[in-house]
C-alpha cells in the first residue's frame, strides 16, 4: 500500500480527510483499490499478455482489509481511465456500483446511488461521490448528516417529504422483494397510520425533514444500523 499512497498526493489526502469523516486508512483503501487493479493489470499483462486484466482478489495484497475491499471502485473502470487524475473524475455507471459486496444485498442500493450521484443525468458515480458515500456511512459521521441523507434515501419520489406512497415503498423494501413477502393492505394501512401518528407532528399527512430528524434523534437503533463497514 506504500506505493499507492505516494501516488495520491499528501495535500489531496489531507483535503479528503478534512472534507469527509473517513480516516486516512479508509481513504487509502478506496484509493488503493482505485490503483491496485492498475498495478495488477500491469503485472498480469506482463505475465500473460492479457488485455482485459481482471484483477483477482487473492493475489493483490495479503492484508485482510484490502482483500476485503477488493473489487471496489476502479476495477469497475475501463482500462484507459485508471491513472490517478482521470480516475478521480471518471464516472462509473450504476450497474457496476450495484455489484459491490457492500451494496449487493442492500434493498436501498438504487436509492443510495441516485442520492449520491452528482452527474447531470444522475446515473453514475465518480470517485468523490463514492468517498462521500463512504463518509456518510462511516462510524464517525454525525447523526445530523446521517439522518439528512437517510431522509433523502427514503424519499422515493424526491419531493422533499415522505408521504404514504414513500412509506409503503419503504416498508416493501424492508420486508422483501417477492410478492408473497409483502404485508397485506390492511396491515400496511395500520402500520403507516401508526408511523404517521408517531412522527407527523403537524398532521399534514407527510413527514418532512425536521420531523424525520426529530424521530431519528429519539431512535436508539439508528446510529448502529446506518453504517457501512469497508
Amino acid at each position, binding site marked *: 500500500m506504500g506505493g499507492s499512497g505516494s501516488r495520491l498526493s499528501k495535500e489531496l489526502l489531507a483535503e479528503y480527510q478534512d472534507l469527509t469523516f473517513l480516516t486516512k486508512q479508509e481513504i487509502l483503501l478506496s484509493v488503493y483499490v482505485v490503483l491496485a487493479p492498475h498495478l495488477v493489470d500491469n503485472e498480469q499483462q506482463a505475465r500473460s499478455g492479457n488485455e482485459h486484466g481482471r484483477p483477482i482478489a487473492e493475489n493483490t495484497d495479503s492484508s485482510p482489509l484490502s482483500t476485503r475491499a477488493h473489487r471496489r471502485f476502479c476495477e469497475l473502470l475501463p482500462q484507459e481511465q485508471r491513472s490517478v487524475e482521470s480516475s478521480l473524475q471518471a464516472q462509473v455507471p450504476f450497474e457496476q456500483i450495484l455489484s459491490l459486496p457492500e451494496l449487493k444485498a*442492500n434493498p436501498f442500493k438504487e436509492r443510495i446511488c441516485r442520492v449520491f450521484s452528482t452527474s447531470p443525468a444522475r446515473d453514475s458515480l465518480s470517485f468523490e461521490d463514492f468517498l462521500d458515500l463512504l463518509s456518510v456511512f462511516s462510524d464517525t459521521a454525525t447523526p445530523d448528516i446521517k439522518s439528512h441523507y437517510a431522509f433523502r434515501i427514503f424519499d422515493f419520489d424526491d419531493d422533499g417529504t415522505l408521504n404514504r406512497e414513500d412509506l409503503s415503498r419503504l416498508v416493501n423494501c424492508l*420486508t422483501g422483494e417477492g410478492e408473497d413477502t409483502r404485508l397485506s393492505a390492511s396491515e400496511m394501512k395500520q402500520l403507516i397510520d401508526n408511523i404517521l401518528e408517531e412522527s407527523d407532528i403537524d398532521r399534514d399527512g407527510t413527514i418532512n425533514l425536521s420531523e424525520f430528524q426529530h424521530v431519528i434523534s429519539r431512535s*436508539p437503533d439508528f446510529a448502529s444500523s446506518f453504517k457501512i463497514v469497508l
Partner: protein
Amino acid sequence: MSESSATALPPGRPSRQPAVHPENLSLDSSCFSSPPVNFLQELPSYRSIARRRTTVHSRDKQSGTLLKPTDSYSSQLEDRIAENLSGQSLRNYALNISEKRRLRDIQETQMKYLSEWDQWKRYSSKSWKRFLEKAREMTTHLELWREDIRSIEGKFGTGIQSYFSFLRFLVLLNLVIFLIIFMLVLLPVLLTKYKLTNSSFVLIPFKETDIQCTVYPVSSSGLIYFYSYIIDLLSGTGFLEETSLFYGHYTIDGVKFQNFTYDLPLAYLLSTVTYLALSLLWIVKRSVEGFKINLIRSEEHFQSYCNKIFAGWDFCITNRGMADLKHSSLRYELRADLEEERIRQKIAERTSEETIRIYSLRLFLNCIVLAVLGACFYAIYVATVFSQEHMKKEIDKMVFGENLLILYLPSIVITLANFITPMIFTKIIRYEDYSPGFEIRLTILRCVFMRLATICVLVFTLGSKITSCDDDTCDLCGYNQKLYPCWETQVGQEMYKLMIFDFIIILAVTLFVDFPRKLLVTYCSSWKLIQCWGQQEFAIPDNVLGIVYGQTICWIGAFFSPLLPAIATLKFIIIFYVKEWSLLYTCRPSPRPFRASNSNFFFLLVLLIGLCLAIIPLTISISRIPSSKACGPFTNFNTTWEVIPMTVSTFPSSLQSFIHGVTSEAFAVPFFMIICLIMFYFIALAGAHKRVVIQLREQLSLESRDKRYLIQKLTEAQRDTRN
C-alpha cells in the same frame, strides 16, 4: 428537475413532482392530500431546514429544491457562511465534496480579512481537532477483539454482536477489579513475602476471647492419594486453602514503610467497597450512554414503529443469506407488533366479568410460580446443608466420584433448577393471557430472578449454618467455630466451586451438545426428527443470564477470595472464544430477532440486578457476622466493619466530630427530606414540560392547517386572475 421561478405558478409542472390539484385540498383534517409542492419549496422554513445551524433567513431568490444543491442554493449558502463564520468543521455540512471544497475556499478567503489573533485561533483549533482525531484513531486500535466483533456483526447482525460486546465489557470490568485488589491488597503482601518491607502480623488474641476460637485445624494426612490433588484443585481445599486464593492467607496487620504504616485490614475492606462502587458507576454510565431515554415523551414503549421502520435495516449486512433472514425477521417483527396492537385493543374492550376471571387466574398462576420458586430454594437449602454436613466427615475415606458429588451438590442442584424452571415458566405464562411482547419480558424477568436468587439462597444457607449451633457454643465467638473455624475461607471455597462448575458446564454444553447436534443435522438430515429439531439457535437471553450469573458469583466471592476476579477474567476470555467458535460453526441465526437497543438496556439491567443481589449478602457478612478469630486480617476486630470506626477514631478530633455529625440522625433526616423535595420538583417540572409539548404540537398542526388553507386560497385567487 427543473426549477420554478418565484413569481408565476408554472403552467407545466416539473416532471418529478406529484400531480397535485388544488381542489384536492380541503380543510377537513381527515383528508391528507399533499399540498402544492412548488409553493412549499419557497417557504423560509423549508430552506432553513437544510442548514439548521445558521440563524440567517434566506433571501427569496430563485427557488431550489431541498434535494439538489443548485447554484442558487449554494450561493445562498455562501452568503450565509459569509455572514456567519462558524468555526465548525466542513464535514458537518450535508453537501457533496466539490461544494464543500468551494465552501472551504470561501472560508479561507474570508480568513484573510480576519485579525491575526482570529487566524491563529482558527488554525490552532483545527490542529487540535486533527490531533484529537489521530488520538481517537489510535485508541480504536487498542480495542480488544475489534475485528472479531465486527465480523460477527456483519454476519449475524447487531443483536448477537451486542452479546459479545457485553462479554468484552465484563472481561474489562473483572480485569479492573483485579487490578484494584492487586494494588491495595496483594502488592503489600508480596512486598512482605519477598522481605522488601517489614510488617507486623496479626496478633492472635488470647485475652478477651476464648482460646478455642483461635484453633484452626490444618488438614494433614499421612498418605495422600493422587486424586486428592484434583479434588483440592476443584474444590479449593487442601493445598489451595493456604494460598493467597482465600481470605485466610492474609494475616498481615500492618506494613511498615518509611514514613507510615499501611493498614492492611482497612485496605482489604476498602478494596471491596471500591470495586462495588466502581462496578455500579461503570454500569450506570454505560447504560446511559448506550440508551437515550426521554422521560418527557408520552410514549409507552421505546420500541416504536418509527424505530423499526427507519432504523430497521442493518446496512452492514453483506451476505445474501443474512439479508433474506433480515427481511423475514423484519416481516415477523412488524406482523407481531401489529398483532399485539390488535390484541391490546381487544383487551381494552374486555367486559368486567372476563377481567375478573382473568385476574383470578393470573393470581392463581402467580402463586404456582411462587411455589415453584419456593420448591427450588428449599431444594438448594437442603442440598447445601447436606453437602456441608458431609464435608465435615471423613472425606478422605470416600470414593472419588462420591467425593466430588458431595462437594458439588449445591452447584448441581442450582444448575438443574435453572434448567427446569424456564420450561415451567414458559408453559405457565401461556395461560395468563398477556400480549406476546409482555409475555416474553415477564418470562425473562422471572428466569433472571430465579437464577440470581439461587446464589443468594446458597449464601444465606451458609450464613445460617455458620451462625447456628446446637448448644450454646456460638456465644463464645459469635459463630460456629467448631465446624467453621475460618468461615470466610469456606464461603470463598463455595464461590470458587460455583465458578468452576459453571465454567465446566458451559464448556461441556458447547462441546457435547452443540457440536454433536450440528454433526447430526449435517450428516443425518434424512431423519425427520433431526430435521425438525434443527440446528442450534444462539439464544441470547439464556447466554446473557449465564454470564451475569458468573459475574454475580465473582462479585460476592471477591471479598472472600481475592484472586477470584482474575479467575473470572480468564474464564470470560475462554468463554468468548468458545462461544464465538460455537456461533460460527454450529448455530444458525434465530428468526426471532432480538433488537440491539433493547439488548443493551436489558443486559445492563440484569447486570445491575445481579450487583444489587450481590451487595446484600456482602453487607450482612461484613457488618453482622463476627469475623473469624482463627484466620484472616480481621481477628483483632469484632466484625469486619469495625475497622472503619477504629480508623475514624484515629483522625484528628475536628474531622472526627464532622464525620460523626454527617452520619448521625440529625443530619440524615433533613438530608432525606431535601432529596425528596428536589425529586418532587423535578417530577413537577417534567409534568409541566409534557403539557407544554402537547400544546405546542397542537399549535403546530393548527399552523399547518392554516398554511394549507392560505395556499389554497392563494392558488384559487391566482387561477381567477389568470382566467
